[in-house]
């Protein structure tokens, strides 16, 4: 009798350890291309395998990562990062200044985020890492929080700078990496920070939305990211799952050629914006009413968000009045004409993001109500940047991520620019000039003062809202279905982390 109860205890104990070692299974649409941060760094960052010098807290603010502190010289040209003392890579070596310099130099050599900063040199000075710049660049720490600037051990690199294996310093280490689909990780016991509660996790890239939704439904995956609208409705009725949704700083917007004779007056651009039924597009096409973008920057971008009332919706009459001021009169078919010329534009968009062509056709019919004849050309994403360069683009519809790094300024410097003579960018404004905006952005580029951001960011956002060189349409929502066995789940709007180290199994 005693023996059998001991056996039962042993079995129970093994069940217990099984529960403790249980793997947290995550399914998401993004494939793993290789171990190299330049192509697939986001997966290793999100699964908490590799870390940056700088990280973000749950409010999206910059926070110490592998660098415990940093300071900039008065002229803004020299940044000194002090490294955390007790951090180790998964191969046991210390996160030293030399290793950090090695990693940063490898990422500078490849296309990536560090391209945007005028970096002169990266050096190890004692235990610190010193980055020297050719001109002041205040958002540098934000670049060092991007997944293309992950810090890996020296053993991770081949001689030519290619990453041959993933050796990071995060709370989880790679057990098995089989691109393009699967990665399993286990807890790293030597981690410098708090030990995570969940011992093991797996990542599976599943490109079909239907499959992902079914994985959530069957319990195959504990967390499933990016749900299609039809599946969301079905999963919301499932009692053992909870659905989460969070707006991302990614905006679906129209890029207008501001030197086009129909679009060079801001009243024309405002009228086009007023004719858009954003609430209808958000609720009807994207199935997320909160996605309607009344301004370019969503709330998660802090000082850049103006707080324009969501009620400021479609107003065709006011829009027609604005266009009438510019000499546009409706003809017998209801289409606007000026000097015998019809108001006809071509919109270019692409199908890589499946919702864009749908939104484009909705805009087509909404602008038709205004009297604007919009032709929709669905092609390749490259049609927008190449049309920007050869000046053939009239209207482009795209999705732009302002949260690539935790400071939208970096995207804005690319998209709008701080040189008053040469403004605009591949995914930003086109032939639009505003000396003040250029000056404000230039000040922000150089100033590390918090106050400058709080003063100038709203001015930039307000001016963009008035001038409408870019017309916001909708904000993307990140959605996730989470098993009720998981506690502490939250979505990082910057998509830097799945926060698996902050979750635990429900009792």
């Amino acid at each position, binding site marked *: 009798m005693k023996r059998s109860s001991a056996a039962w205890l042993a079995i129970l104990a093994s069940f217990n350890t099984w529960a403790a070692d249980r793997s947290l299974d995550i399914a998401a649409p993004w*494939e793993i291309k290789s171990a190299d941060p330049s192509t697939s760094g986001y997966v290793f960052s999100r699964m908490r395998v590799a870390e940056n010098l700088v990280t973000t807290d749950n409010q999206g603010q910059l926070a110490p990562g592998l660098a415990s502190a940093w300071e900039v010289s008065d002229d803004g040209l020299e940044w000194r990062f002090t490294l955390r003392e007790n951090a180790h890579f998964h191969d046991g070596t210390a996160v030293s200044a030399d290793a950090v310099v090695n990693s940063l130099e490898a990422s500078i050599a490849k296309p*990536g985020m560090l391209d945007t900063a005028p970096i002169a040199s990266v050096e190890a000075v004692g235990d610190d890492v010193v980055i020297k710049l050719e001109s002041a660049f205040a958002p540098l720490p934000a670049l060092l929080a991007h997944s293309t600037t992950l810090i890996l051990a020296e053993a991770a690199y081949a001689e030519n700078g290619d990453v041959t294996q993933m050796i990071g310093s995060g709370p989880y280490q790679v057990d098995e990496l089989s691109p393009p689909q699967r990665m399993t990780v286990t807890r790293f016991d030597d981690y410098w920070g708090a030990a995570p509660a969940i011992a093991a996790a797996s990542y*599976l890239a599943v490109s079909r939305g239907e499959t992902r939704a079914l994985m959530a439904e069957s319990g195959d995956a504990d967390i499933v990211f990016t749900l299609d609208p039809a599946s969301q409705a079905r999963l919301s009725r499932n009692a053992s799952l909870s659905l989460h949704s969070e707006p991302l700083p990614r905006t679906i917007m129209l890029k207008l050629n501001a030197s086009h004779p129909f679009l060079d007056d801001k009243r024309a651009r405002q009228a086009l914006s007023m004719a858009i039924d954003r609430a209808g597009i958000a609720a009807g096409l994207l199935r997320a009413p909160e996605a309607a973008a009344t301004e370019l920057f969503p709330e998660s971008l802090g000082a850049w968000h103006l707080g324009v009332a969501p009620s400021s919706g479609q107003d065709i009459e006011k829009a027609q009045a604005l266009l009438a001021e510019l000499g546009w009169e409706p003809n017998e078919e209801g289409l606007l004409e000026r000097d015998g010329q019809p108001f006809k534009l071509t919109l270019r968009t692409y199908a890589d993001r499946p919702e864009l062509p749908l939104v484009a056709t909705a805009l087509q019919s909404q602008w038709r109500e205004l009297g604007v004849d919009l032709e929709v050309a669905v092609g390749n994403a490259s049609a927008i*940047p190449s049309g920007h360069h050869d000046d053939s683009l009239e209207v482009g519809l795209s999705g732009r991520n302002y949260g690539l790094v935790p400071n939208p300024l970096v995207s804005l410097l690319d998209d709008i620019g701080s040189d008053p003579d040469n403004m605009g960018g*591949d995914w930003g404004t086109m032939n639009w000039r505003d000396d003040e905006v250029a000056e404000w952005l230039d000040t922000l580029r150089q100033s590390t003062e918090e106050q400058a951001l709080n003063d100038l960011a709203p001015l930039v956002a307000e001016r963009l809202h008035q001038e409408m060189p870019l017309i916001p349409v909708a904000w993307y929502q990140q959605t996730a279905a989470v098993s009720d066995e998981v506690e502490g789940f939250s979505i990082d709007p910057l998509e830097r982390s799945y926060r698996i180290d902050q979750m635990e199994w429900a009792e």
Partner: protein
Amino acid sequence: MTSRWTQGLGRLLLSRLFQAGLVAWLVGTLTFILTRSLPGDMAYRIAAGRYGYDMVDGAAAEAVRAELALDQPAAGAYFSWLWDLLQLDLGRSLVSGNPVIQELSHQLGHSLSLAIIAVLLSLLIGPPLGLVAGLKPGGMLDRSSEVAANVLRALPPFAVGLLLIMLFAVTLGWLPVAGHGSALHNVLPALTLALGLAAVSSRVARNAMADVSHSAYYAFSRTKGLNERQSFMRHGLRNAAVPVVAYLGVQFVYLIEGVVVVETLFAWPGIGHALVHAIVARDVPMIQGTALVMGLLFVMLNTAVDIACHFLDPRRRHA
């Protein structure tokens, strides 16, 4: 004795070898022309494939263009590919930078294991069902299996797969929905392919068996006193097998088409899945390599079918 068995086999293999060479050249040339004539700027597509859409701008595209010499005339790139192919060098993936042959060997293993299980499963389901149905044409089993076969063949593999997932993974909870790694992960994708294959092979087997069972020699075997089982084993099975095996060759087309869809649905890291992604990213060497391997595989499997028929059917050896 050996000459009786191998007569005509050499000529068969030789013509297949010639065919394989032709397929390799044609597939490579066609994929080259098609990928070059797809709309959109290649440099932008490759940059997007490598670094993700968010990181693509004019600068990244120009870097890719310079690195891969995409602004050079296409003819040069074509002939250098052909020359490399003659040396059995498939080049490197433009996206991952790994040798194509290394990527393919990894993916091909996954696809082959899936395909083999699917074919075996289909052989277990289709022909036996067809043979039994063919013994009594017009009977209950014949009619119901005909309806089932038509429905399964009419549904695209994608829909069959989804229905199987809903039944076996979501409702019953017996099998995992998608992914790979354990034996259980094989079952649903293989079954999806197998059902489509079995739908056709069961009908082929049924018609072959119906023909045989109505033939004079089959009737004679019964008349001369063999029982049903003996007639079937001695005169039925082998005669009915020839069209079934021959038709298997045609079905490999379905298998290759099915693998592309089924692998995407079940997140299976195989060659079909790789092909889809390579096309999206304009990864020309990967597209050429994948199409080449698929084409050669097709020739190889058909050769195997020919050899099987060669041994099954003595009439072919003397033809």
